[in-house]
């Protein structure tokens, strides 16, 4: 059989987000570019505060003031999103790109039954359904995420954490999106339930034929789930590579430090963080933002900002020496 041509479903080019601050703008997302292929699972990891959630929101153009998208292009299935008007963008959310936001399982409305929250999602996007059709769609959605139909009549507090997270996924996929962005969907769940929720997400992906961006900190989860991993540091995507490469041969020194700081289950007392603090985003160190903490930094790193370079198929890094 001939090789299957990779089709990009989502393209992000030169995306920049700033937050206004009296002492100078915070560059939360700094010139980020990547491509997501149809059916691909892309992971997004990186230091806390490095801009992962902001980037996810920026893709959906949901940045609120004092934040502002100051540059870049996002293209979904050939359509450039900045060309869409407010109404077009509203329709795109859920139907084109759906987001399961960070902490969403705790943001379900506590006084509304799951059914009403799903119905709201349909209504918000102008989907008119008869009450019988709505019930059928909701039952179908719940079964797609592995929940019994009766769950529709329950309130969030009557659900376990895993069930709530599945309900959030159900809301996100109700309009059959092409891309699902899930921001730390399982960090509040035990590993047994985590596995079930990720199996649910995998099954949803197969049923919908969509791509997934998984934002998270759990490298084990990334290793087991995603095809490629992007690593962010101080607002930049410093490395993107197939997951196997990242685990076995990380190229960027930050990625290397991140991988070697992973806590082991083999020997106690081996846990060590990367020394130093994350840089101040409104006053980044000159040159490579990682240089004050980088074991391999040289004079050039302090003077010259490393460009993102192609290292191999689907693999890039922003380091002078990677």
């Amino acid at each position, binding site marked *: 059989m001939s090789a299957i041509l990779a089709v990009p479903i989502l393209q992000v080019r030169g995306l920049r987000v700033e937050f206004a601050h009296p002492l100078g703008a915070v560059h939360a997302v700094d010139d980020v570019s990547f491509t997501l292929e149809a059916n691909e699972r892309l992971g997004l990891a990186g230091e806390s505060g490095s801009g992962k959630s902001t980037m996810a929101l920026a893709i959906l153009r949901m940045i609120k003031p004092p934040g502002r998208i100051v540059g870049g292009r996002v293209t979904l299935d050939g359509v450039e999103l900045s060309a869409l008007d407010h109404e077009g963008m509203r329709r795109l959310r859920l139907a084109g790109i759906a987001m399961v936001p960070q902490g969403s399982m705790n943001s379900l409305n506590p006084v509304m039954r799951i059914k009403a929250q799903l119905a709201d999602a349909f209504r918000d996007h102008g989907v008119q359904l008869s009450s019988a059709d709505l019930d059928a769609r909701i039952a179908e959605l719940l079964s797609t995420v592995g929940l019994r139909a009766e769950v529709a009549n329950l309130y969030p507090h009557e659900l376990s954490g895993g069930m709530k997270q599945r309900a959030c996924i159900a809301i996100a996929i109700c309009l059959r999106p092409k891309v699902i962005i899930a921001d730390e969907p399982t960090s*509040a769940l*035990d590993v047994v339930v*985590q596995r079930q929720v990720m199996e649910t997400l995998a099954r949803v992906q197969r049923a919908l034929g969509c791509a997934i961006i998984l934002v998270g900190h759990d490298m*084990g989860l990334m290793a087991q789930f995603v095809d490629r991993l992007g690593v962010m540091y101080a607002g930049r995507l410093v490395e993107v590579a197939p997951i196997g490469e990242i685990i076995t041969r990380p190229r960027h020194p930050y990625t290397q430090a991140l991988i070697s700081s992973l806590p082991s*289950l083999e020997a106690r*007392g081996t846990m060590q963080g990367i020394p130093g603090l994350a840089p*101040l985003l409104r006053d980044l160190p000159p040159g490579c933002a990682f240089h004050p903490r980088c074991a391999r930094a040289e004079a050039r790193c302090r003077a010259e900002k490393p460009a993102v370079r192609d290292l191999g198929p689907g693999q890039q890094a922003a380091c002078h020496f990677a």
Partner: protein
Amino acid sequence: MTGPLLEARHVTKRYGAMTALSDLSMTIDAERPAITAVVGESGSGKTTLARIILGLTPPSAGTVFYRGQDMARLSGTQKRAFRRDVQAVFQDPYEVYNPFYRVDHVLTTPVKKFGLASSRAEARTMIEGALRAVGLRPEEILGRFPHQLSGGQRQRIMVARAVLMKPKLIVADEPVSMVDASLRATILGSLRKLTDEMGISIIYITHDLATAYQVSDNILVMYRACIAEAGEVERVVKHPQHPYTQLLISSIPKVSIARDWLDDEGEQKLAAIPSPDGCRFLERCPVAMARCAASLPPLYRTEAHRAAACYQYADSPELPAGTLNEVLVTGQEHVGA
């Protein structure tokens, strides 16, 4: 007041027909500082246990004692001492912050309230030190509103607050669930230091078994409102005895190129309704026996520093209620171990 710092005796919490925590007894002795991780199923009662110990939720049955005094009957002075001795770091930091106050507020308030500093300058120095201990830059964080920080930044401010107070006990419910591995190591390292250098006990509630293993002395594994297994962390993690602990440990996703974690064709296994009388793990247990359906297994002391609530170990002596503490080790013992 005399007695251990905190003691929970036969504590049960019910919400309507649902039991969130079932007949749990444990002691926290300020003289024997240690880090005890509490892990287990989502919804198994870990946060409920934390809230009861913190006096935030009254138990439906049983009593919590603070230095020998019933928590429900503390005097004003005793309450104040309790709030100084016992600090909380919560799972969902959004709830703790007042959106209208700058985050500085959550740090300056306790300093003022408990007179921790003699001058504004000293207070500032203390606060900055605590922020750096959790990997935050004071100049980046102070002056901001809660919504202007990332999830992990908000979480770390709560840890900094607990560090600032230098209490006897910190109850930390998922303190690092939103930060990366490297920072988890840094923050947990600073908590470990509190235990080793200042004798502060820590209850570390988490789903991250690898960091629990790395940082704790003891571990409690909870399943459906009960303790399934408890003991010295090395033994429990390396050789889990309870079938639930075995399932939990074997479900950790591994950082490896071998992908064996997801069962892509797998059926969605939904948690079944617990049997009313028998072992709570019965319907999922691969080694269940006839007697497991009849009654709830008690904790058996299977080793000097381990107990498991499972009939497979019925030959071991039962652990008398209220003696769980004897099974656990202290930080010092652990260092020597």
